[in-house]
C-alpha cells in the first residue's frame, strides 16, 4: 500500500512538477515517518476541504436575499458540540500514540551500532570515526549498518540534520547528544545545520556519502596507519600529564581509570554516578564538581586547554581501558 503511494508520488513528481514533493527516504526509519506524514497530510486536506466546502455551500445557500432579512434563531445543539469535541480528540489520541510509538522506537539505537563522533563548530562539522579517520563537513557511512553519532559543540548550539534519514538533533555546547540511523540507500545526501548559529549558518552544510560496506572498508583503508581515536586519546593522556596522577596501578594521587568506564562510582555525597561520556567530560573540564571519597580535590581544570574533539579522544581512551566486555553497554 505504502509502496504504491510512494511510487505514485515519485511518478507525479517526475511527470508533472519541476520540483519534488518529498525528500528521498534513505534510512530505516524514513518510510515510517513518511507514512505518518502522509496520514497527517490526508487529515489536513480532509478537514480543510470539509470546512472550506461547508462554508462555500452555506455562503451560497444562505446568502442574504433582502436587506432587512432576519434569519430564525438556531439553538445550540449539545450533541453536535460533543461530536466535534470528541471526534477531534479521538483523532488526536490516535496521532499521538502513533507518533510517540515511532519516536520512542526511533530514539533507541541498536546495541550493535557503530559509534562515530561529531563536533560542531562555527561553521563546520568535525567528524571522527572510531578507527581514527577524521573528516570535515563530510560523513562517510556504510549502507545497512546502524551508526550512532555522539555529538557536542565547541561554541554555540548547532543542529545536525540529515533530511533523507529524517534525523535531526541539536548539538549543544557542554553536553553530549546522540542520534542514530541506518542508511538504506547508497548515494550522496545533504547534511545541514538546522539551528541558527551565526553569520555562516547557511554554509554549515556538508555531504553524507552512503557507500556499500566494501567501498566503506576501502575508504577507511585509504587512511590506514591513522591512529585510532583511543590511541589519539592515549597520546593526549600522556602529553597532558594525566598519567602521572591517574596511574594504572592506582599508585598516583588520583584514581586509576582502568575498568571504571560504564560502572557506577560512589561519590563523596554517597550518591552513585554512572561513568559515561558526560561524566568523563565533566571530570576533565570541571573536576571540582565531582567530589570523590578518599581523593583530595586537587585536579586542575582542563577547560580551554583541550578541544571538544580531544575530550572525545580522551573519552575513547578511558573507554578502551574498561575492557572488552564493557565497551558496548555505555548507555
Amino acid at each position, binding site marked *: 500500500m505504502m509502496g504504491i503511494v510512494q511510487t505514485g508520488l515519485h511518478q507525479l513528481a517526475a511527470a508533472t512538477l*519541476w*520540483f*519534488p*514533493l*518529498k525528500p528521498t527516504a534513505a534510512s530505516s526509519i524514513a518510510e515510517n*515517518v513518511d507514512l*505518518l*506524514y502522509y496520514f*497527517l497530510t490526508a*487529515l*489536513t486536506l480532509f478537514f*480543510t476541504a470539509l*470546512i472550506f466546502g461547508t*462554508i462555500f455551500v*452555506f*455562503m451560497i445557500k*444562505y*446568502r*442574504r*436575499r433582502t436587506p432587512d432579512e*432576519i*434569519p*430564525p*434563531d*438556531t439553538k*445550540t*445543539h449539545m450533541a*453536535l*458540540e460533543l461530536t*466535534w*469535541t470528541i471526534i*477531534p480528540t479521538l483523532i*488526536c489520541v490516535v*496521532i499521538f500514540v502513533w*507518533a*510517540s510509538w515511532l*519516536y*520512542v522506537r*526511533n530514539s533507541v539505537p541498536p546495541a550493535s551500532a557503530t559509534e562515530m563522533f561529531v563536533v560542531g563548530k562555527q561553521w563546520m562539522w568535525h567528524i571522527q570515526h572510531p578507527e581514527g579517520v577524521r573528516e570535515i563537513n563530510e560523513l562517510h557511512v556504510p549502507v545497512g549498518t546502524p551508526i550512532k553519532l555522539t555529538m557536542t559543540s565547541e*561554541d*554555540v*548550539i548547532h*543542529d545536525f*540534520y540529515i533530511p*533523507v534519514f529524517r*534525523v*535531526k538533533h*541539536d548539538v*549543544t*555546547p*557542554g*553536553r553530549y547528544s546522540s542520534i542514530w540511523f541506518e542508511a538504506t540507500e547508497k548515494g550522496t545526501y545533504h547534511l*545541514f*545545520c*538546522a*539551528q*541558527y548559529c*551565526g553569520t555562516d*549558518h*547557511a554554509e554549515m552544510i556538508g555531504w553524507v556519502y552512503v557507500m556499500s560496506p566494501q567501498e566503506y572498508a576501502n575508504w577507511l583503508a585509504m587512511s590506514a596507519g591513522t591512529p585510532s581515536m583511543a590511541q589519539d586519546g592515549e597520546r593526549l593522556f600522556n602529553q597532558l600529564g594525566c598519567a602521572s596522577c591517574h596511574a594504572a596501578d592506582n599508585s598516583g594521587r588520583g584514581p586509576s581509570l582502568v575498568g571504571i568506564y560504564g560502572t557506577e562510582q560512589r561519590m563523596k555525597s554517597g550518591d552513585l554516578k554512572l561513568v559515561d561520556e558526560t561524566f568523563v567530560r565533566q571530570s576533565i573540564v570541571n573536576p571540582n564538581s565531582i567530589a570523590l571519597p578518599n581523593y583530595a580535590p586537587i585536579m586542575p581544570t582542563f577547560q580551554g586547554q583541550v578541544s571538544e574533539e580531544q575530550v572525545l579522544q580522551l573519552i575513547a581512551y578511558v573507554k578502551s581501558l574498561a575492557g572488552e566486555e564493557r565497551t558496548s553497554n555505555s548507555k
Partner: protein
Amino acid sequence: MSTATLDIHAHDAPLPSGERKNYLNVDHSVKSWLLTYDHKRIAILYLISITLMFFVGGLFAVLMRVHLIEPQGFLVAPENYNKLFTMHGVIMVFSFLVPSIPATLGNFLVPMMIGARDLAFPKLNLMSWYIYVIGAAFTLYSVISGGVDTGWTFYTPYSSSFAHTQVVPTAIGVFITGFSSILTGLNFIVTIHKMRAPGLNWFRLPLFIWAMYATSVIFILGTPVIAVTMFLLGLERLLHIGIFDPAIGGDPILFQHLFWFYSHPAVYIMILPGMGVMSELITAFSRKRIFGYTFVAFSSLAIAVISFLVWGHHMFVTGQSVYAGLIFSVLSFLVAIPSAIKVFNWTATLYKGSISYEAPMLYALGFIGLFTMGGLTGLFLASLATDVHLNGTYFIVAHFHYIMVGGAVMAYLGGLHFWWPKITGRLYPDAWARFAALVIFVGFNLTFFPQFVLGYLGMPRRYAVYPLEFQTLNVMSSAGASILGIGYLIPLIYLIWSFKYGPSAGPNPWGAKGLEWTTPSPPPTENFPTIPVVTEQAYDYAQTTGMVEHG
C-alpha cells in the same frame, strides 16, 4: 483627572460649525492627543504606532524574499540577511502582533462593548502607550545602529557570548515593551470585572470580551517571564555572569525553557484576540447568534490555561528527555481541541443565516480557511516522530505564518474594516476593500504554501543561501510575497483616504448588534451619555431574549 471626569451635558451642545461633538473633534491640539486619557484616542495612538512598525517589519520581509530569489543570495551578505530575519521577527512579534488587536481594537472596544465610559485606569492606559513607544524606540535604535542577528528567539549562548550585534538594546526594547502589555492586561481584567453595564452578566458579553479577558490573563502571567529572561540575557552579556553559557557555568537549555514559557503563550496572545474578532464578524454578517456561545467562550479560557503547559514542544530535538517529550506532545494535541471547537462553531453559525459579503466578512472567511490550515499543520509538529524531521525547517515558518499572518493579521484587518466606521465615522470604498482582501488571500497562500513543501524537503530556516534544488519553491514564495506586500498597501491607502473623504457612516452601517453600535459614529468622548441597561443576550439578531437559556 480633568479629562477623565466628564461633564456630560457639555457634550450635548453642538460645535460652532454645527458638527456634533465626538472624541475626535473635541480638541484638535497635539497636546490633547499626547496627554489624552480617552481609551479611544489611545487606541488611535496605538493604531498609528503599530501600523508604522508593521510596515517596517514588512519591509524587512520583502527584502528577505527578494534576497532568496537566487540560491546564492540576490541582495545582501549573509550577516545582513541574518539581521533582516531577526529584525523582521522581533518587530513583528513584539511591536506589532502582541499589541495589535488588544491595544487598538481592544482599547477602543472593551469599554464600548461593556457599556463603560473608559477603562478602569485611564492614566495607566496612556502610560502603557508611552512604555510601548519607548520599547519600540529601543528596537528601532538597534535597527539603525547596526541591527541584531540572533533571530527573534535570542538563543544562548550565541546571543549572550558570540553575537557582535546590538543584542542588548533589542533585549531592552523587548523588556520595556512587555510592561505595556502587562498594564493593558491589568486594565482589561479590572475593567471587565468591575465596569460592565447593569444587566450585562458574563454570559451576555460579546465573545470579543471573553477573548480579551483570556488574552489579558496571559499578558499578566506570561510577560514577566520574558522580561526576566531578557534581563538575565543582558546580565550574562554585559557582566559575564554564567547563566546560559556553559563555558562560564551556565545552561543554554535553561534559556529555551524560560523563553518559550512566555513565547508559546504569546502565540495565543496573538491569535486569541483574532478569534474574538471572528466571533463578532461571523455573527454580524450572518445575522445569527453565535452557535455554541459557552463552548466558544470557555474554549478561549481553556486555550489560555493550556497554552502555559506546552512550551516544551519547541524543544523536542534539544535533548529533552523522552518522557518530557511525550507529555509536551500530548498537551500540545490537547490545546488544538478548543481551537477546533471554535472553527466548527463559527462554521455552524453560518447555517441558515443571512450572509452578506462586505469586506470584513471576506477577511473573516479567509481567516477560517487559513487558520484551519495553520492549526492542522500544527499537528505535524505536535507529533514527535514528524517534528524531528520538520523542526527548524521552512515547514515551521509556513505553519506559524498561517497562524500569525493568515490568522491574526487577517482577523486584525477584518476587525479594523468592521469597526473603522465606528472609529472614524467614515465609510471606505467596499469594492477596494474586497479586492484587497482577495489580493492578500492569494498573495498569502502563494507566499507560504510552498514553504510547507520546502520544509518537508528539508530546507532549514534562516538560510541566507541554499542548495539549487530549492530555488523553484523559493521563487514562488517570493512572487507571492510581492503580491502580499501590495495587498497590505491597498488598505493603507483607502483607509487613510476614507478618514478624510469617506462618506459618513452613521451609527450602525452593518446593522450589527452590540452596545458599541448604539452610539453615534464617531462616539462622543464619554461613549454613552447615559449608561445603558442590558436586557439582551449577545448577538440576539432574532430578538428572542427572555426565552433563550445559555449554552
